[in-house]
């Protein structure tokens, strides 16, 4: 006999490769449709990734190419006070074209309907924006409105009050004709208008009383330089001086960077949500391959008997997985591009630029690559068992697969490569590496937790399943435990989507309840602010005349920190070792009173009610969190700049504040007897029993006191609801990918266990089961599976929601039974539907025919 046959030469290697490819193709006969469904489960994930990343790249190029329209000018300066003379002098020397804008909050009145609403008023000069344009409805209004002394208003006002072009809108004592509705404006996205709708009026002729009387304003000057000046250079020299004068500035480059960061964070975050779908899909493919490969064990053993080595034999199935991954990823990329076209509409409200559609091939390639990589890696896990198939299996089908070694180095390395790959993709996709790591960790945690809950539920069903009663019910439940069942995988893959959606619902309900509670009971639900000292009595009498109570009148004094613990704030800000100095720079609105309110609790020291008339240092009370931020405690000294007057104080008490109540809480509370003579304004809290009473009171107050603003709780709730549902919509949309993937994985699982199910059915029918009974067993199985999956997800959602409520929102958990029932019903019915659809043909055809038709 000759020497050992070996496969060394490369022609031999090519022959082996050819054989592997040929066998991979042939072996897939009869399973290709099934494989198509397996592949579908990762199509969705790849589609999500490709769509979001490709869209993100469109977004980035849109921001880059439209950078100047983001600012609308070459340079802007802004301050919360009129510019000091020094700054005005610099502005004068800068030249170029200039345009001023002053923005402030004020009540606006629509005399035709009598409605009033707190709005953001922007008083403008001609010129700005030079880049990009204000778009209005009707379009012509954008050009002429300033010249005609008219106004432009936000669509929100049209929707809320039925404002029409030609109506008049009153700001302070002046009335303007509404000439158009704002559609799009540079520098701001439409989402802003939810908080406070905008009203554009000319700066010339503005009722300046509104500005003089305490309302917070923003003064801006915009520049355009036609001489191609280096704006960054101007900013480099002027910047420090502007900062010292508390004047902010913005350049095209800066606003481009800001938007770039914000938007890439947004789409990257969405991409991470899409990545869950891809992982789920890969798990689904992996599990389907697990079942598939078990049906191929005979083939593998026969190939081994006739001399196939384990490497090439396993390669057959790796090639098949790769092909599935590649097909899935390509189809996914195609679907992703289609999806990409719909994304702009989904997030148009928060976008400052027009996004032009183009395919970002880099994003497509990444999506396809990640899809194939993840599929093959996940498929390798079940495929490794091919290595251990003994040729003995061919002569004795009962041979158990070679017992798995306690530690399999190959398996362990595949597992670690999978982990590293997932981590890498997460880090690559996340806004930052730390975020990616945290995300991957959280994901692993959620997966493990879901798997744990699934295991527990399956165990419980087995343990507590009825042992008597309807046979169909018992058999249906028992089917969940059939050999090679994918019950737990399905609970996991269906559970993740349910978890995401359930968590969103629970969180929304909890937060809404919290806001609702804040405006409920006999508490204030109507707040008037910016009330001047000489107006407070007048406002109170207007309210009483309207039949509304004055629950509280809170004086407010604005001040800034001059020094903390003897060290001047300028000094602290110059100290670069300190990170965030915002708390030292900000303007504080403090009050004075002789008692704690219902929302406050003393946690340390003594609350001083009234200051000694001749005290050199005033004892004040600090809120706990701000004290921590400023690094101060009991006995520390703070010196305040109260509009030019220095007031030395010492922290005599620390309070804990329940911030959920609107507008009435303070970081610092002074005792009575100190600030009474300081410049101040007031907030008055009242309560209206219904919206009509609230609206009437607001109108009456604004008529008498145009500078006074009002907010009522229903408005807060409405705004909150609108913002939250927008966020929720986007996250739900992403979660939907996971849900869909779960359903596709289910279809794949049913198809992969088809042979087994047929055998069961045939056996049952042979034993005399009617078609009806067989169908009922199937229904019980899928309903039970759906219930188990949905319970897994919802248990975890409610648990997480409860923890969030307890530790983050600090409020009781609120559950909307209706929403949760809808989720349960939706999932169970869909599972039943998909299960039944994928079982088509198993239960109806006569036993014998079914047996013959399937391979």
């Amino acid at each position, binding site marked *: 006999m000759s020497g050992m046959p070996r496969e060394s030469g490369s022609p031999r290697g090519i022959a082996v490769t050819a054989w592997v490819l040929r066998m991979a193709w042939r072996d897939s006969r009869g399973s290709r449709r099934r494989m198509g469904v397996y592949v579908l489960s990762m199509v969705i994930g790849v589609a999500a990734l490709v769509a979001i990343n490709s869209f993100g790249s469109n977004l980035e190029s849109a921001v880059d190419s439209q950078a100047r329209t983001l600012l609308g000018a070459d340079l802007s300066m802004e301050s919360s006070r009129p510019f000091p003379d020094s700054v005005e002098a610099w502005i004068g020397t800068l030249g170029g074209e200039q345009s001023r804008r002053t923005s402030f909050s004020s009540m606006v009145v629509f005399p035709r309907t009598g409605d009033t609403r707190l709005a953001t008023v922007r008083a403008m000069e001609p010129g700005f924006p030079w880049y990009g344009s204000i778009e209005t409805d009707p379009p012509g209004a954008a050009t002429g409105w300033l010249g005609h002394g008219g106004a432009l208003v936000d669509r929100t006002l049209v929707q809320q009050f039925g404002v029409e072009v030609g109506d008049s809108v009153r700001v302070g004592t002046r009335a303007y004709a509404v000439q158009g509705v704002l559609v799009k404006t540079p520098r701001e996205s439409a989402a802003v208008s939810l908080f406070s709708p905008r009203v554009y009026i000319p700066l010339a002729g503005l009722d300046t009383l509104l500005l003089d009387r305490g309302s917070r304003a923003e003064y801006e000057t915009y520049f355009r330089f036609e001489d191609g000046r280096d704006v960054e250079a101007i900013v480099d020299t002027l910047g420090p001086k502007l900062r010292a004068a508390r004047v902010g500035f913005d350049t095209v480059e800066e606003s481009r960077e800001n938007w770039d960061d914000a938007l890439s964070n947004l789409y990257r975050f969405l991409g991470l949500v899409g990545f869950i779908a891809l992982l789920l899909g890969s798990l689904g493919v992996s599990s389907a391959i697990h079942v598939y490969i078990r049906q191929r064990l005979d083939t593998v053993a026969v*190939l081994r008997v006739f001399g*196939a080595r384990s490497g090439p034999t396993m390669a057959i199935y790796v090639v098949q997985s790769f092909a599935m991954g590649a097909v899935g990823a390509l189809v996914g990329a195609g679907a992703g591009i289609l999806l990409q076209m719909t994304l702009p509409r989904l997030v148009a409200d928060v976008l400052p630029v027009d996004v032009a559609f183009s395919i970002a091939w880099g994003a497509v390639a990444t999506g396809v690559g990640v899809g194939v990589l993840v599929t093959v890696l996940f498929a390798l896990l079940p495929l490794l068992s091919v290595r251990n198939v003994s*040729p003995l299996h061919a*002569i004795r089908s009962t041979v158990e697969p070679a017992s798995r070694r306690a530690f399999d180095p190959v398996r362990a390395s595949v597992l670690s490569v999978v982990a590293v790959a997932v981590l890498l993709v997460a880090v690559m996709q996340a806004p930052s590496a730390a975020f990616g790591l945290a995300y991957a960790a959280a994901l692993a945690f959620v997966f493990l937790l879901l798997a744990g809950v699934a295991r527990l539920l399956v165990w419980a069903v087995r343990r507590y399943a009825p042992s008597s009663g309807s046979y169909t019910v018992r058999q249906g439940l028992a089917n969940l435990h059939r050999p090679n069942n994918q019950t737990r995988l399905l609970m996991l893959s269906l559970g993740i989507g349910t978890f995401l959606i359930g968590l969103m619902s629970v969180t929304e309900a909890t937060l809404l309840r919290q806001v609702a509670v804040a405006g409920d009971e006999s508490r204030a639900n109507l707040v008037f602010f910016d009330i001047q000292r000489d107006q407070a009595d007048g406002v109170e009498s207007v309210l009483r005349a309207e039949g509304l109570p004055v629950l509280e009148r809170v004086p407010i004094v604005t001040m800034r920190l001059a020094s903390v613990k003897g060290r001047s704030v300028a000094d602290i800000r110059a100290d670069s070792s300190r990170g965030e100095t915002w708390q030292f720079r900000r303007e504080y609105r403090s009050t004075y009173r002789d008692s704690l309110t219902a929302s406050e609790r003393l946690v340390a020291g003594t609350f001083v009610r009234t200051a000694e008339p001749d005290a050199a240092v005033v004892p004040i009370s600090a809120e706990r969190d701000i004290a921590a931020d400023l690094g101060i405690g009991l006995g520390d000294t703070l010196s305040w700049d109260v509009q030019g007057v220095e007031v030395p104080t010492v922290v005599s008490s620390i309070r804990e504040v329940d911030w959920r109540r609107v507008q009435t809480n303070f970081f610092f509370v002074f005792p009575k007897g100190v600030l009474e003579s300081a410049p101040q304004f007031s907030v008055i809290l009242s309560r209206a029993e219904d919206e009509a009473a609230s609206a009437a009171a607001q109108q009456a107050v604004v008529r008498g006191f145009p500078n006074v603003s009002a907010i009522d709780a229903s408005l807060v709730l409405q705004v909150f609801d609108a913002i939250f549902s927008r966020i929720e919509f986007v996250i739900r949309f992403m979660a939907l990918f996971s849900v869909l993937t779960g359903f596709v994985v289910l279809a794949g699982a049913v198809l992969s266990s088809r042979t087994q199910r047929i055998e069961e059915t045939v056996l049952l029918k042979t034993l005399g089961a009617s078609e009806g009974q067989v169908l009922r067993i199937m229904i019980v199985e899928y309903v039970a599976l759906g219930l188990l999956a949905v319970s897994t997800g919802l248990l975890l959602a409610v648990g997480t929601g409860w923890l969030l409520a307890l530790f983050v929102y600090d409020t009781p958990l609120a559950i909307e039974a209706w929403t949760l029932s809808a989720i349960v019903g939706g999932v169970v019915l869909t599972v039943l539907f998909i299960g039944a659809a994928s079982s088509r043909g198993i239960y109806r055809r006569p036993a014998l025919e079914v047996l013959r038709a399937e391979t």
Partner: protein
Amino acid sequence: MSTVLSVRGLSKTFTSAGRPLEVLKEISFDLQARDTCAIVGPSGSGKTTLLGLAAGLDRPTAGEVVLCGHAMSRLDENQRAAVRNRDVGFVFQSFRLIPTLTALENVTVPAELRGDQDASRRAVDLLGSVGLADRTGHYPAQLSGGEQQRVALARAFINRPSILFADEPTGNLDADTGGHIVDLLFDLNRSAGTTLVLVTHDLELAAKTGRIIRLRGGAVVEDRPLTAPAVGVDG
């Protein structure tokens, strides 16, 4: 004459439910080229286990199998696979055709495995000689049991093996069909000059071979060349 299969002191012990179970005890025999041999014995006596060991599908607990000059216990699984591919043919009781391959493709598998790209013509010839010339494109599910076993016979001979193992090749077939398969088996064997090891219950079939090895409880109780008188140790 060259020794194709040499079995020396072969023992196999399984650990089943924690207890050792000695399935084969010290089996020894030699087969020369062109020998035919039947292994008979009651169910559970170890016939299949012996066949598996002799064909290099498994490793013995003790003893050695030398197959076409290769001491099988010194080879790893992949090397044994190469020996099987080159020198061994196999026929199973339950046919074991690959369901996703056509009859022709099933027959060419062993040839393709050794890199033989033009085995198709020989496979077609072989299928013709088992009477299935017109069924080459059919899948196993479209063939009857007897037809499937005939495809399996063609597959077993495609690589012109030195030795053919058949484990109860007629066990799943009715008597007529089985008879036809046996005739084909012996015809092919004769014309290819292959050594044949046959496991069977069927004494009539066993009688067609040149030697009968009778197993009971894992031990050889009778090893009788059919040309010589029986040397019975036990009934």
